[in-house]
């Protein structure tokens, strides 16, 4: 077991470095010059451009730039944004928790709604509830989050005025307002999780329900609720946990669209503007953080899967 873990960890570390290197190189091959973005539409005579490039260290050899950036990053110093001169680490520290919070809220909401819904649907198989739950599942899986988000903004923000349509409020200054702003984006992200979790729970509960030990418990005289909670859910949750683990990883991708639509000040908006403005250090830093997070999540999932099913551990 230990060699497996060590091997996976080493692979993860190597992978992260490879990812960051690739991004670093590709960024410099991309057309578009950050100095020109900084100058905007105005006069950009060659001497001005050259002076600014020098000030940013862009005229140093690639290897030097890479080494200097990497050594800084390993120490936690991500350098400064080309465009604003602000230290990137500060911005990352401010924004990363917001994206994490949105991800966490979506997962929590998704599971809190999906699992009970799935169990209920399995229990009342064939009923109206089951049918409705199935409908929710279909909507959640087939409608992309940018569609769901747009409709949510229109319906709940503009028409019904139940929640603020956009934006973000700091928790410390206004806890209630913060939560209200969190609802729509988290719900949008959560819908697909609800759909998948619900279906998984439903099928695994159904499978468990038909097994002998459940009938034995019933025969012993336990009520349905007790049987459900004690035996079924415990056994059904294993595949569900796996799926949740997988969903957490892919949420990092979907969150880009949701943050865009709701103007949530997280990492993806930072990444998008960094890419559009060719602000290399910003893009490198965000990709590093996201890649590390993603690799860690995958690692956790693999390790968990390896722990559950020893047959899998071929890798």
């Amino acid at each position, binding site marked *: 077991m230990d060699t497996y873990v060590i091997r996976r960890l080493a692979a993860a570390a190597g992978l992260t470095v*490879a990812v960051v290197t690739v991004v670093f190189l590709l960024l410099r091959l991309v057309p578009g010059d950050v100095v020109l973005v900084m100058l905007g539409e105005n006069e950009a005579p060659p001497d001005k451009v050259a002076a600014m490039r020098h000030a940013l260290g862009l005229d140093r050899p690639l290897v030097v730039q890479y080494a200097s950036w990497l050594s800084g990053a390993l120490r936690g110093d991500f350098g400064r944004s080309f465009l604003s001169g602000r230290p990137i680490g500060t911005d990352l520290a401010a924004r990363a928790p917001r994206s994490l919070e949105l991800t966490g809220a979506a997962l929590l909401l998704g599971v809190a709604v999906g699992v009970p819904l799935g169990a209920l649907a399995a229990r009342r198989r064939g009923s109206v509830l089951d049918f409705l739950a199935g409908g929710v599942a279909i909507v959640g899986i*087939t409608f992309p989050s940018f569609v769901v988000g747009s409709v949510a903004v*229109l319906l709940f923000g503009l028409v019904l005025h139940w929640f603020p349509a956009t934006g973000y409020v700091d928790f410390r200054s206004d806890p209630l307002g913060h939560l209200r702003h969190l609802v729509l984006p988290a719900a949008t992200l959560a819908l697909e999780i609800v759909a998948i979790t619900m279906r998984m729970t439903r099928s695994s509960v159904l499978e468990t329900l038909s097994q002998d030990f459940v009938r034995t418990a019933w025969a012993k005289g336990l009520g349905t609720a007790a049987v459900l909670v004690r035996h079924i859910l415990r056994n059904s949750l294993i595949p569900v946990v796996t799926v949740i683990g997988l969903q957490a990883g892919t949420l*990092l*991708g979907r969150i880009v669209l949701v943050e865009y639509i709701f103007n949530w000040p997280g990492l993806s908006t930072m990444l998008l503007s960094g890419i559009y403005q060719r602000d290399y250090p910003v893009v490198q830093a965000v990709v590093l953080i996201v890649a590390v997070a993603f690799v860690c999540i995958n690692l956790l999932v693999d390790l968990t899967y390896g722990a559950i099913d020893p047959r899998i551990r071929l890798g």
Partner: protein
Amino acid sequence: MRSADLRVAVAGLVVLGLALAALGAPVLAPHDPLEMSPALLAAPSPAHVLGTDSFGRDTLSRLLFGARTSLLIAALSVVAAAGIGAPLGILSATYRGAVDWVVMRAIDLILAFPPLILAIAAVTFLGTGPVKLAVIIGVLYLPTFARLAYASSLAVVQQDYLDAARALGGSTWRLMRRHVLPNIASPLIVQCSLSLGFVILVESGLSFLGLGVPPPAATWGRMVSESRNYMQRMPLLLIWPSLAIALAIGAFNMLGDGLRDVLDPRLQHNWRRRRAVGVARSPARIPQA
């Protein structure tokens, strides 16, 4: 009729319908999708059955041509992903050693990125257009096919009778063709159908962000994005392309699920299949966008 067969039938019909709409768009569309009429943001009428957009272009025609674009890119992507991924997986399983290591590490590299972010970055680096998009998205889904093929082939390759056959002088190619390929055909077909759905999801997400096939070409994702500016004046503009996207994704997903159920009995006896499924699922291409 079993419910699985029913699902395949219904989904198959929808997919067929979409394909026909896509192929027949030039003939079926009542208007040129690029033609701008003076009637901006018009409500549905006999002249424009689903109304017009902010340029006065016919929505129905744009939906049909959007189907063409989306399905074309989806098909090309999956062909690229399967066409490159599957052989890579098979080769890795057959030859092992260095080949295996290189391929698997490359796949890990691709999988290390959240897919949409990788797609955004790639489009920014490489530019956009139907073929480039197909290649980029194809590369995103390559790992799924590679791992699927790898796991399925591994199972076969490890069986003793293959060594025996080799000892008897059979070439590796012929062995692959006769034993490996039939084994992976079914899961491959299922995965193709599922991947088509995921690809449409990614492509519409990219279009939404303005990174897909550029205007004035009609793409569903961009139609959704543009409609958001007019949500109060003409909310229908948001509905049509959203339904189209959902229909396409839903149909391909249902087809894939149905095919998996239909083909499953034939595979169930192979317990090693479960291991393959386990490997292929972690981390798999689950829908996202």
